[in-house]
């Protein structure tokens, strides 16, 4: 009698634990969206850059000037070359247009995509993009050279300590399928 009692509580304990194990496996996966939310809040890894295509103008604070510099890197497997936009000095609130110049070195069409990242991270959430070549995959024909525009402004609330913002793009080769939207 007693033995069957123990056996059934053993079964019960193991069932609960098994359920817990499955839950923890799921938790591992749940860490991914959680991490993305976290990145957006603190502005790590280019996540949290604001996108505002409405083009409404902000008040311009002429007392402050922020240097915005541009860079990037071509990742392995993408036969492109590029030159970044020149460094610009902007007032918070002011809308600015710059462009990267990309060249396809291959003799076939190549599709690439750009993944942004901003330094310092605390500036990320105050960087507002109205238009960016990183919104979509970009296809360059053989030997084509293309200007890739970026329209942005810097929010007025950006912390006082930020004097320079660096915007960097990593250019990856996109899947050879059609150029669609990318999640970044």
């Amino acid at each position, binding site marked *: 009698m007693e033995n069957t009692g123990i056996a059934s509580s053993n079964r019960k304990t193991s069932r609960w634990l098994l359920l817990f194990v499955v839950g923890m496996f799921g938790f591992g996966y749940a860490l991914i969206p959680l991490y993305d939310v976290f990145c957006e809040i603190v502005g790590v890894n280019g996540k949290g850059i604001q996108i505002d295509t409405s083009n409404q103008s902000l008040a311009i604070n002429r007392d402050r000037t922020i240097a915005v510099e541009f*860079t990037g890197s071509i990742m392995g497997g993408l036969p492109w070359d590029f030159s970044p936009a020149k460094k610009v000095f902007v007032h918070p609130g002011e809308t600015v247009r710059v462009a990267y110049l990309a060249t396809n070195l291959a003799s076939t069409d190549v599709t690439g995509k750009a993944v942004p990242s901003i330094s310092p991270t605390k500036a990320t959430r105050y960087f507002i993009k109205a238009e960016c070549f990183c919104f979509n995959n970009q296809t360059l024909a053989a030997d084509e050279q293309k200007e890739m525009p970026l329209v942005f402004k810097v929010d007025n609330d950006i912390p006082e300590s930020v004097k320079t913002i*660096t915007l*960097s793009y990593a250019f990856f080769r996109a899947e050879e399928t059609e150029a669609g939207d990318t999640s970044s």
Partner: protein
Amino acid sequence: MKLVRSFNASRISGVILAYTALLFGALIASPAYAEYGLNFKTPVTEIAHIEYDLHMLILYICIAIFVVVFGVMFYSIYAHRKSKGSVAAKFSHSTNAEIIWTVIPIIILVTMAIPSTEALIRMEDTTNSDMTVKITGYQWKWHYDYMDHDVEMFSSISTPRAQIENKQEKGENYLLEVNNHVVLPINKKIRLLITANDVIHAWWVPELGAKKDAIPGFINEIWTKIDKPGRYRGQCAELCGKDHGYMPIVVDAVTEEEFEAWVQKQKQG
């Protein structure tokens, strides 16, 4: 049997004593012994100084606690042994003692946490820099882009293969020499943007106190301000494949004039 036991016990204390002595002798001997490779290399930037001082502070505190705790333990091992006729006491707890040895560590930790926090805040402040160098890790070389000077270059190991394969005598800077040195001006706040092209690397020059992961797709930043002209050598610090041990870094810290001259030369060359 008893004899064997006490012999062993005295050996314990003997070895332990020798051990503590070694620990003391070796670790306390700080900057003076630096050239023998026992401690951090002599720091040449504010950040490296901060790291060094913090390291020594924590180390001293740890050694002090270590000596007290193990002093008590080895005294007990010496005095409270059966072979000396020690009779076991019966106590199995003491609330006072337990409160004391919870509270004291908390106080010690707080005294450690305060300077550490200050140091970290100082280190993370990359604002007001005078120039920016972008560093990209590749399998297995570094790329440097002087963003304000329009100068860029790759830098890879220059130690001859024959030295690595033991066919030739190894030079003084074996494995720590490169074809293109990173030339940086002293007394300037330099912002280093660090990224990678393929896998994760880490850019590390011990004397500068600068180490940061280079992550493909994203940029990291640190800053450095070198006080002393000189040649500082470092290595990749994150396993990045088979030649991870062969992607060194050489920084030449020079005066501002020398730096400008170097930039001009690079542009012409």
